[in-house]
C-alpha cells in the first residue's frame, strides 16, 4: 500500500523534484567556487568566507521551495477530486495522511542526501585556508531539519480544509489589523515584531532557518 502511494508521489513530483535535487547538490559547490583552485592564495580567504556567507541564504530558500512543492504535490490530486477517492478508501483517514506524509518525506530525503554529497564534495575539493573549517554534515543536518519542518508546516496547511486555511489567514490578518489600530490610536505596541521574534527566536518554529548558513567557517 505504501509503495503504491510512494509511487504516485514520485510520479507526480519527479519532473520538478529532480532539478531541485540537482540544485541541492550544486549549491555547496557554487558557494565555494572561489576556493576551487588549488593555487588559491589566502588573499581569497576573506572572499571565500564572504562568498560562502552570501550563498548561505540560498539554503533555507531552497529548503522552503522543495518543501512547499512536495507538500502541494502530495495533495494536489486529491484536491482536484475533492478528496472523494481518498476518503472512500478502506483505511483510517489519519493512516492515509501519514502515508502521504511519509512518501513525501522519503523523496525529500533525496534532496538532503544530494546536498550532503555536494557539501562533502565541495569541502573535499576546496582549498580551505588555515583557520577555516568545513562543516558539510552540519549544514546537511540543518538543511534536513529546515526542509522537513517546512514540509510538515505546508503539509498541514494543504491537508486542511479551506475553512482551516481561512482561519489561519484570518488570524494573521487579525494581528495585522490590531497592530494598525493600535498605531492609529497612538499605542506603540510592536505586536507584529513581537510575534515575529517568537517565531524566529528559539524555541520558535522558524529558528532553524535563521542565522548564518556556512559550509565553511572559522
Amino acid at each position: 500500500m505504501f509503495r503504491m502511494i510512494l509511487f504516485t508521489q514520485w510520479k507526480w513530483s519527479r519532473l520538478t523534484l529532480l532539478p531541485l535535487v540537482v540544485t541541492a547538490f550544486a549549491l555547496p559547490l557554487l558557494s565555494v567556487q572561489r576556493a576551487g583552485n588549488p593555487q588559491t592564495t589566502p588573499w581569497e580567504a576573506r572572499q571565500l568566507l564572504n562568498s560562502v556567507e552570501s550563498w548561505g541564504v540560498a539554503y533555507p530558500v531552497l529548503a522552503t521551495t522543495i518543501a512547499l512543492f512536495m507538500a502541494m504535490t502530495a495533495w494536489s490530486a486529491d484536491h482536484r477530486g475533492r478528496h472523494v477517492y481518498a476518503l472512500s478508501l478502506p483505511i483510517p483517514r489519519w493512516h492515509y495522511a501519514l502515508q502521504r506524509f511519509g512518501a513525501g518525506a522519503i523523496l525529500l530525503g533525496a534532496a538532503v542526501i544530494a546536498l550532503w554529497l555536494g557539501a562533502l564534495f565541495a569541502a573535499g575539493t576546496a582549498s580551505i585556508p588555515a583557520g577555516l573549517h568545513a562543516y558539510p554534515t552540519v549544514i546537511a543536518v540543518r538543511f534536513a531539519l529546515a526542509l522537513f519542518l517546512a514540509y510538515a508546516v505546508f503539509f498541514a496547511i494543504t491537508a486542511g480544509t479551506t475553512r482551516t486555511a481561512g482561519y489561519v489567514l484570518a488570524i494573521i490578518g487579525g494581528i495585522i489589523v490590531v497592530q494598525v489600530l493600535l498605531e492609529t490610536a497612538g499605542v506603540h505596541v510592536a505586536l507584529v515584531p513581537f510575534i515575529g521574534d517568537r517565531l524566529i527566536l528559539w524555541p520558535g518554529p522558524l529558528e532553524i532557518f535563521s542565522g548564518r548558513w556556512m559550509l565553511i567557517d572559522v
Partner: protein
Amino acid sequence: MSERHRWAVAALAASMMPAIVTAQDTTALVQRLHQLELLRHAAVVAVARAESARREKLDTVRSGALVIVVRPGEAALVRQASGVAWTRLDSLYGDEAATLSSTPMLFFLLGRPRPQVAHLYPVIADSAATSADVAFQLVRAASEVIREKADTLFSNWTGSLLLAEVPAATEHARVYVELVTAPSVAVRRCYAGTADACAAALGLREGILQSWGDAAERRALVAHSTDYLGRLRPAVDACMLGSDSACLDVLHARGFEPPLSTDARQSLVRLTLVSGGRRALGRLAHGASRSLSQRFALAAGMPVDSLILAWRRAIIEARPKPVTIAPARAWTALGWIVLMGLMAFRSSRWR
C-alpha cells in the same frame, strides 16, 4: 555680535570709503557699494545674534570632568545622561578622561536653533532622545575630543574613534575572523603564534612593508588598488610583470594600512588600558619621540611581545562559535515537525 566686532565692521566699512571716494570708474563704484551693503547686512545679523545670546539663559552641567552647557529645559536629561557617560569614559580612558574638563561641550536637541555660544564642542541629540541616547552621544563626542588630543602617530594608528561601547567578546570574535582570513604572510604567522609577525601585522613596527606579505600578496595588493598617480604607472606595470621591488615602490608611495584593521588595533589598545591602569592611555597618546612599540610596553607595564602574545591569546580564545547545531535546537525542530505532522493527521477533513 560683541562691541568689538561692531567696531571692526565699522572700521572695515570706513576703510573702504577712500577707495569709494577716489574711484573714478562707475562700475567699480557700484561694485563697492554692493560690497558695503553686504557688510552692513552681515553686521545687522551679527548684532541680532548677539542680542539673542545675551537674552538666552544656559545652564552648565558637570559630571566628573565633563562640562556641558545646556538649555535649562534639557538640563535634567543631560545631568542624568552625563553621570552614565562619565562612568564609561573614566572606566575606559582613565586619567586621560580628566582632560575633558578643558573642553566644555554644548548640548542641544535637533529641531531647535543652536544656542549662540562659540568655542564649545557641539553634542547634538534627536528631539525624542532618551537618557541612554544622550549618554551615547556624550561618550562619542568625548571620545572624539580625547582622540584629537592624542598625537598624530597614535591617532593615525588607532584610526577611528576608540568607543567605550564595544563588548570585548564581540570585538575579539571579529578580530579572530580577521586573523584567519587577512591576506598577509604576517597575519598568518601571527595566527600561528609569532609575536613579531603580530607586531608587524598590527603596524607596530614601521618601515617593514616587506613583512606584511609575500611577493604574490604585494602584487595582489597593487592589482586591487586602482587610484594611482600617473607617475606610478610605470612601477605598477613593472610590478604586474613580476618585479617585487617595483611593487614595494608602489606600496611605499601609495601608503597602505597595516594588514590588521583598526578593530584589531583598538582591541590591543583596550587590552593595554586594562593591563596598564589609569595612566595607560596618556602614555600611549602622548609618547613624544617614542615609537608605538615603546609606548605600548610603557603603557602596559610589560614587554611589548608579552603584551602582543596576551592579546593574541585573547583573540584566539574568542574564536566565534562554529556553525553547529546545538542539540536543543535540533530537538526543538524535531518537536515542531512532529507537532505540524499531527496537525495534518488531525485535520478536520479526516475526522
